[in-house]
């Protein structure tokens, strides 16, 4: 180090270039500063396909609330980051949002693994995360509000429907899923439920495929064979994301008609169908808590808002977007009610908060951090929308700890 200080300073700059630059990003103002909303959705990588629409929904809601004069007299400001479908990056970005940008609330995540990745960060730093996607349950963090469905708000009613007279009185069920925790857990719950309804294991087929699986020929023909054993059969699909388009194409091309083997999906919504010609798929089903085709004033307003924001009449709305919308409104109500964005206060105010959701029901946030939601079964139509053929009379409370998983009995309360 004979060359003296100038070089060591350069070394410092090079060695910790980003490290020193980052604290500078910290905002200097404190008083009457805007309320900050973190947006933690992948804008690149494999999940961008689903998550970019949610980023846009949050930005739309921020515009909406600012249009109404902001919150608590303060402007609301979105901080968008791109965790790039990379799960450790989700954790890093969550910490950045909370510690560097000091956001008051975060809307984000789609996959379970991204949620699991950020969970310790939100718990350690006492942040607030709104998670808008249906998932496998078996979780309840005091720092997360789950605005999507738990398994009992989606899967079980759907199977009930398949076994009903209207649904085709299915006696054999093929459980097809992408190999990750949501399908595995959901199918475990469904198997237990089906067994309790007198469906034996011999009449249940369970098969898993990797993410992005594109060659469904073999599996679809196996399903055909499974259905050709003399009992009415149906498919319950927990196939995720990208794999759905090739799956439905194969279903259509192998001539599996909804009248013969109906397929009910839990991860296929309007957005996913946008890439498929739905004519051969008419009558196949999806179970959600919201469909774009729902005819309610709240939904009309939601759709109008979305189209005005995105400036594209072809863009659709879907269930996780509705859950984001509902969650955002609920959070805004809770902040307004408690008069602060402090996490502990807002959390308390969240319990019991109600919103007229676009799905046409009043959804309520319960102490279990989950929403009560209605369940709807929709049939795919030629135009890529869903026709609701069945729905629950009321919003159902979430059972995030499923009674069909026996280990939940030993769970620590």
């Amino acid at each position: 180090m004979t060359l003296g200080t100038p070089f060591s300073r350069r070394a410092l700059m090079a060695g910790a270039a980003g490290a020193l630059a980052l604290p500078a990003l910290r905002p200097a103002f404190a008083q009457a500063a805007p309320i900050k909303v973190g947006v933690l959705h992948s804008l690149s990588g494999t999940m961008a396909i689903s998550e970019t629409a949610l980023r846009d929904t949050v930005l739309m809601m921020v515009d909406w609330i600012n249009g109404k004069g902001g919150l608590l007299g303060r402007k609301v400001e979105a901080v968008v980051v791109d965790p790039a479908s990379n799960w450790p990056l989700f954790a890093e970005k969550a910490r950045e949002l909370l510690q560097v940008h000091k956001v008051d609330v975060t809307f984000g995540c789609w996959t379970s693994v991204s949620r699991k990745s950020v969970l310790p960060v939100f718990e350690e730093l006492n942040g607030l995360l709104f998670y808008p996607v249906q998932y496998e349950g078996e979780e309840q963090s005091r720092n997360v509000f789950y605005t999507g469905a738990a398994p009992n708000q989606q899967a079980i009613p759907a199977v009930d429907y398949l076994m009903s007279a209207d649904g085709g009185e299915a006696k054999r069920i093929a459980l097809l899923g992408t190999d990750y925790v949501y399908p595995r857990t959901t199918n475990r719950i469904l198997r237990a439920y089906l067994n309790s309804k007198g469906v034996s294991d011999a009449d249940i087929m369970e098969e898993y495929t990797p993410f992005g699986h594109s060659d469904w020929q073999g599996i679809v023909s196996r399903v055909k064979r499974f259905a050709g054993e003399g009992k009415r059969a149906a498919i319950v699909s927990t196939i995720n994301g990208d794999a759905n388009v090739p799956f439905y194409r194969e279903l259509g091309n192998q001539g599996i008609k909804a009248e013969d083997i109906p397929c009910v999906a839990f991860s296929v919504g309007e957005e996913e169908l946008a890439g498929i010609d739905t004519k051969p798929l008419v009558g196949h089903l999806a179970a959600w808590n919201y469909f774009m085709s729902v005819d309610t004033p709240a939904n009309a307003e939601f759709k109008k808002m979305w189209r005005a924001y995105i400036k594209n009449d072809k863009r659709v709305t879907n269930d996780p977007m509705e859950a984001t919308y509902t969650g955002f409104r609920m959070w805004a109500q809770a902040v307004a009610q408690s008069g602060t964005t402090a996490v502990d206060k807002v959390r308390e105010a969240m319990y019991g908060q109600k919103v007229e959701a676009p799905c046409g029901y009043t959804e309520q946030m319960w102490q279990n951090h989950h929403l009560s939601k209605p369940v709807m079964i929709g049939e795919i139509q030629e135009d890529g929308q869903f026709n609701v053929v069945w729905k629950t009379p009321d919003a159902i409370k979430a059972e995030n700890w499923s009674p069909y998983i026996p280990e939940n009995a030993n769970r620590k309360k």
Partner: protein
Amino acid sequence: MSATITGAPWLRPSRALILRGLLLAGLASLALLPVLNRLPADSALHVSDFVVAVSGKWVCYAVLALAIDLAWGYAGILSLGHGAFFALGGYVMGMHLMRLIGPRGVYGNPILPDFMVFLGWKELPWYWWGFSSFPFVLLMALVVPGLLAGVVGYLAFRSRITGVYFSIITQAMTYALMLAFFRNDMGFGGNNGFTDFKELLGLPLNTAEARAALFYAALAVLAGALWLCRHITRSKLGRVLVAVRDAESRVRFLGYDTTQVKLAVFVLSAMLAGLAGALYVPLIGIINPGEFSPGNSIEAVIWVAVGGRGTLVGAVLGAFTVNAVKTWLTSFAPDLWLFVLGGLFIAVTLFLPRGLVGLLRKGEGR
């Protein structure tokens, strides 16, 4: 390529000194981070937890980059599967952390990790045995990646698979491992991998203290790895590696068993990568099959290219620079960062074949 020495000879040591100074100063300033973190939040020198956490991650990446540089920069072995060794080390550590959760899991099962419980596993698979012991885990974090590298390397080097072919093979290796680890039936938590860690060596994780401790551990490993790689590359073995890189068959005719030499350095490199992975997991709190994704390995190679291959310091510099740029841009320009990063990769390969270090050392021979 035939850069000649243009400057006066006395300039050479001083340039080397600059680089070494840079490195030492960089490491020293890094070492200060957790201390600065303890300053009051309104102090001008205060750095947030985020900076400490993210720098810890980069230090682990720097170790991975060093491992790649040793194999690629010196021995010419371009592995596009080093992310796999990193991830395996991470999984080994992850298994340990899962076992340490004990009855604190959601389901209160003292033996089985949560994901096994709710997927209905009844007993711990045999390959999970022993992972509650830290020394065993430390050993495994080296042995597992080393063993895999040994098998793949032996088969490939013995068949004289070199260059691009070797890269493609290793890429397929990490891809196959990714698919395998995605399978829930493997007993490694499938897509979700391992999370929800509680403690390591009695130190509760998710605290500033733990992060500082892990940060120093990582920094120590980085320093140790630098020393080791430097020692190797300065020895005659280092010169053999360079010779293998430039003219392998000639080395063979000199009587060196190049298969053995390459295997040794490849296995060592894999072990370093595994160690980096083992440090990385408790720092970031999750390990999952995404770490095996081929893109990750390519990115890690690009860190080395950006910094300057075959220089060790360059690998460290590259890992820090690229990741700092990435961290900054994914917040600053979330829609455009891929353009900047992609452009950086193109620009470096086209205009800076010797990376950032080459820029600093302009005109000097290797």
